[in-house]
């Protein structure tokens, strides 16, 4: 495909400091509201058809009584080497030159191959036409397409916010300032466990955080090369033991 611009100023990515995550789900709610994701009512759970571009997974570590609840937010990893992309027969999902894994809704024909290919289970298929209660009529985000039935969707790194941020910078003839563009989830996170930014910029917060010793990516053996980097949980017991002898 030659439809992309060669020059690459941005490589968007996210760093998730798992140590700071309290599992409060503010990110989940913010994402739902920002991106016109349909409401997950009871019947969706019963049918295992829940749509949630970002989810907080809870798991237990240790044995009772020495047990800890752990939380890890998971969203589309925007893999540089994405398993979902080559399987799409119509090029509805592709990698753009800013490091985003893009889903073109109007191009999508709903084969669901991509969702089968995704090891992180972050792609969601619209089994029904989305409906909102009457009270939500004017609460939809006009900058985001409402996906109709039969279409795949997933986290877009809030591309509408990225585009707006880049446009504002272009209008003022300057570069995007680090921290200027926030996704809905990073903006909502009360503990700053989620941080969004430009990996291309060496001085950005995400670039610095990525260098932390605690960094890891999900399912690294698949070599998907994700643009979401996690920082491991600090175990207070262990580190306390280490530092104080």
């Amino acid at each position, binding site marked *: 495909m030659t*439809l992309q611009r060669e020059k690459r100023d941005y490589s968007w990515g996210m760093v998730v400091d798992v140590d700071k995550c309290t599992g409060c789900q503010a990110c989940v709610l913010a994402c739902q509201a920002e991106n016109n994701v349909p409401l997950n009512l009871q019947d969706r759970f019963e049918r295992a058809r829940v749509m949630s571009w970002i989810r907080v997974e809870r798991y237990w570590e240790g044995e009772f009584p020495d047990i800890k609840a752990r939380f890890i937010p998971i969203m589309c990893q925007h893999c540089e080497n994405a398993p979902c992309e080559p399987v799409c027969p119509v090029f509805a999902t592709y990698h753009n030159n800013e490091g985003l894994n893009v889903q073109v*809704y*109007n191009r999508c024909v709903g084969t669901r191959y991509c969702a089968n290919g995704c090891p992180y289970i972050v792609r969601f298929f619209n089994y029904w036409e989305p409906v909102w209660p009457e009270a939500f009529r004017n609460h939809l985000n006009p900058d985001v397409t409402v996906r109709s039935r039969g279409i795949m969707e997933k986290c877009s790194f809030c591309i509408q916010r990225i585009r707006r941020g880049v446009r504002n910078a272009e209008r003022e003839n300057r570069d995007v300032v680090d921290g200027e563009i926030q996704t809905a989830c990073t903006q909502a996170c009360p503990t700053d466990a989620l941080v969004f930014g430009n990996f291309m910029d060496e001085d950005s917060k995400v670039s610095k955080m990525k260098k932390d010793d605690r960094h890891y990516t999900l399912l690294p053996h698949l070599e998907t090369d994700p643009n979401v980097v996690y920082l491991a949980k600090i175990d207070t017991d262990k580190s306390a033991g280490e530092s104080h002898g």
Partner: protein
Amino acid sequence: MLATLLEFLREKHRTTPMWMKVLIPVLGVGSLGVVAVMGAFLAFVVTAWLGQPIPVLGFDQSVEQPIAFPHTIHAGMGVYTDSTGDQVQGLGMDCTFCHRTVTSQANAGVPPVQFCAYCHQVIGGEESEPLTQVRTAAGIIGDSPHPIDWKRVHRMPDHVRFVHEPHIRYLTQHPDKVTNSTSGETMGAAGVCSTCHGDVASMEEVAQVEPLKMGQCVNCHRDNDAPTDCASCHH
């Protein structure tokens, strides 16, 4: 030779049954009609495919507005006739005077009725039908002020995101890219709208003149080093 042929035709005429004599011309005329309808249909499909459908089959795309607002009198520079038959000199107002957010935001915006009332509280005759509607909506006549429910003329499908601001910025900086300008004016924000909207200042009733399909958008983007990444228009 010719005589034999005429004889043959005369013979044929005598032997052809009556029902056939009726049927043949009916079929002839009928098939002409069928060809005409199919031709019109084909023309409709082809023009719709390439851009705007020609309004042959009653699919006229023009929109009827709740108030007959003339862009001519407000934005034009010529002399126009108003609804009461008076000759009015066009005001030549800047497009951005009414479509205020066009240089800064995605939407151009249509002014609220209070905005019209600044002038129309006093300007224009009492007997003008459309102005009576404007004054009623603004609450100058009667006491039930209400917003005017203008109908959209240009509308992108839901899966397309169009933003005015970068286009106005780019076109004001590159006046040579402006097209459709009948007045020849290509400077300033108001001079560039014609590229996509045609010469609105001379329209009694706004109609869409450019197809504004994906091909047109992407062609211009490719020629002007603007983004052609699908995600810049579809998200």
